[in-house]
């Protein structure tokens, strides 16, 4: 074997192994939090009803998970998962592991798709809120058809999904009363000057563009505040707000760190019951503090026992 062939083999080997190693590390690290709640899903654990319709103009659907042997004579509770993705990506499938886990704990669960801002359609947060509310209505009907009396729910979500989960809980428009909400790394306030990274990623040069997409209204610097408050969870908090479990990474560079402060200040101001779990080593992916993720999940189950009654 001449030298040239040898060097080519060495170089190719390095490149292939290098890339594979990087991909495997990303997969392993990125999926680590979900590994904590992975369950072996089969007919003994529960039944999944996939791609169910709810009222919306864009063909969005939801998936429903019913635990096995759930008592139809007793009141039951729903946990709704709303996926994240900066309001322009993600899908209900992101909540599959999440839903199966909480279903294995005896709760009816669902994960929902909603209109995203990358689909060439108007997709303001007002529209997303309305779609989520419609999905809950459909879930209420479907679970009634299946023989279950769902009397309360928790809304939950990650990132953008956490925002929508809080909006559902704090707006009081849900046909199933929301007893508490739990969310990770969610934006809480849409003051455009706080969102330079999101504006840059989406190519919105002006605050007006950001406001138009988020609210659906043509707004200027003078008249935007009223609409912004209506879509921002931290502005919706009042003395009647339901208990809230929140988790944020201290190294998050997608959602500005002051976002959690807005929410915590509002919760403190109105003396709302809440638990804040800090992920000191994590960024937006929340994968660097598995002990904190476990604490978050355990606390969410304690909330279920405490507030589902």
């Amino acid at each position, binding site marked *: 074997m001449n030298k040239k062939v040898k060097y080519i083999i*060495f170089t190719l*080997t*390095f*490149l292939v*192994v*290098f*890339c594979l*190693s990087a991909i495997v590390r990303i997969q392993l690290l990125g999926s680590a939090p979900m590994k904590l709640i992975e369950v072996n899903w089969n007919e003994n654990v529960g039944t999944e009803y996939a791609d169910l319709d709810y009222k919306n103009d864009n063909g969005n659907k939801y998936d429903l998970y019913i635990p096995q042997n759930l008592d139809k004579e007793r009141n039951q509770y729903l946990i709704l998962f709303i996926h994240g993705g900066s309001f322009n990506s993600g899908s209900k499938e992101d909540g599959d592991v999440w839903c199966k886990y909480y279903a294995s704990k005896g709760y009816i669960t669902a994960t929902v798709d909603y209109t995203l801002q990358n689909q060439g359609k108007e997709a303001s947060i007002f529209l997303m809120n309305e779609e989520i509310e419609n999905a809950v209505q459909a879930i209420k009907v479907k679970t009634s058809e299946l023989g279950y009396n769902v009397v309360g729910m928790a809304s939950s979500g990650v990132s953008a999904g956490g925002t929508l989960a809080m909006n559902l809980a704090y707006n009081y428009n849900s046909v199933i009363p929301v007893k508490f909400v739990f969310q990770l790394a969610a934006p809480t306030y849409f003051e455009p000057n706080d969102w330079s990274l999101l504006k840059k990623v989406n190519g919105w040069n002006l605050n007006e563009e950001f406001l138009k997409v988020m609210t659906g209204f043509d707004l200027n610097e003078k008249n935007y505040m009223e609409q912004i408050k209506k879509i921002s969870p931290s502005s919706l908090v009042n003395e009647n707000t339901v208990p809230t479990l929140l988790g944020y990474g201290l190294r998050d560079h997608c959602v500005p760190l002051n976002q959690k402060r807005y929410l915590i200040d509002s919760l403190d101001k109105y003396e709302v019951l809440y638990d804040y779990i800090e992920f000191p080593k994590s960024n937006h992916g929340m*994968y660097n503090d598995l002990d904190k993720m476990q604490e978050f999940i355990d606390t969410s189950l304690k909330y279920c026992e405490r507030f589902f009654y």
Partner: protein
Amino acid sequence: MKKRDIVILLIIIVLAIALGAILGKVILDRVI
């Protein structure tokens, strides 16, 4: 391949695994 080449190849593989793993972590930490 000589024995020396196999040793070099093994070193390259170990190095590539280590550097790739570091790159994967950096990508996750920076991008997400």
